[in-house]
């Protein structure tokens, strides 16, 4: 069977206007790539939002990144101080990655 390596699957739900800042943090801790997943709408304590409400300011996006344990820990440390003011949601899960040496 093909070799797999354990990596972290990081999901950051964040206001769309703030995505470039998050991507900046990812680059700063040497995470090599990211993908932005389209979120249509959502709801939480602050009420509900829809992607399609002209003012891009209330839309949210999921930043998905696969990273090594070390880089993940560095990212969490870098991002944690922003979590409250930015209203972010950050989850980390375990995955196996095929040919994952490059992450």
């Amino acid at each position: 069977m093909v070799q797999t390596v354990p990596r972290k699957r990081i999901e950051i739900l964040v206001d769309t206007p703030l995505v470039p800042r998050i991507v900046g943090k990812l680059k700063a801790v040497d995470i090599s790539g990211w993908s932005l997943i389209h979120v249509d709408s959502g709801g939480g304590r602050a009420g509900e939002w829809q992607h399609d409400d002209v003012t891009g300011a209330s839309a949210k996006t999921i930043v998905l990144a696969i990273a090594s344990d070390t880089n993940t820990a560095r990212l969490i440390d870098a991002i944690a101080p922003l979590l409250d003011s930015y209203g972010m949601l950050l989850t980390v899960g375990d995955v196996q990655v095929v040919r994952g040496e490059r992450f």
Partner: protein
Amino acid sequence: MIADTLTSPVILFFVLGFVAAALKSDLTIPEAFAKAMSIYLMAAIGLKGGVEVSKSGITPEIMVAAAAGLALSFLLPVLAFALLRGIGKLSKVDAGAVAAHYGSVSVVTFVTAIELLTGEGLSPAGYMVAVLALMETPAIITGLMLARRGESAEGERNTTPWHEVLTNASVMLLVGSFVIGAIAGSDGFASVKPLFDTGFRGVLCLFLLDMGLIAARRLMQSRKMTLRLVFLAILLPLVNGTIGTIVGTVIGLDIASAAALGILAASASYIAVPAAMRLALPQADPGIYLSMSLGVSFPFNIIFGISIFAALAQALG
């Protein structure tokens, strides 16, 4: 004029959207379609403004109007800030963020005003599009200064996102198509007129249908609106619009353009400024500034404000 306004298809579609959302209908306008319409509307008014200025050239009157617009955008947030702190009981950060919205402008309010005023035989000058573009950003600077006054630079200091603010989509598009219109002139514009002129009012109907849906949903889903804030979201357009109309009259603009300046002052941003605030003041609550500008002031301006400042300009002029 208010009677004409209320039977104009443009306004009736806005009301339809508002009612549909209030009834919790599943009617929605796809986001891409709404963005397409707003790009179309901005390109169209930019072009038309530029074509007009290509005829008149840059006159002293234009320079004065531009200076007045800049000054209003810089200064209106100061008054708004005081009212938001005093009457609204908002924190400094939230008051600064909201003040920036009311100093800046709403393109759609302006476009709707142009249509309604023109329908009454009151066409604002073409260069008012340039004034619109100039008024988008100064308020952001004032708002941020007010929000941060006395703040010690601790933690991750959020710097003013100059670059994002100066190259924001609507400024680029308005200024760009204004310049294109000025270069192309009437002759160059003729070939694209069928799209950008003939269809304009119909597109505005569909766009306001969407704005009605969005304004009502915003109001209903918000958990941040107090009566005080609703009151302020009506007071601020009235105050700012009155100031704007008076300034326009005093500097010698024609009646229609003075009314347009009043409406620009009365209108509140809900695209460019929220995006800038999210970056520069992430701790300010979007639930407050979006609900005020989009949920209350926008409908108020569309339905009443335009007629009010038109009447004021006529009374003063």
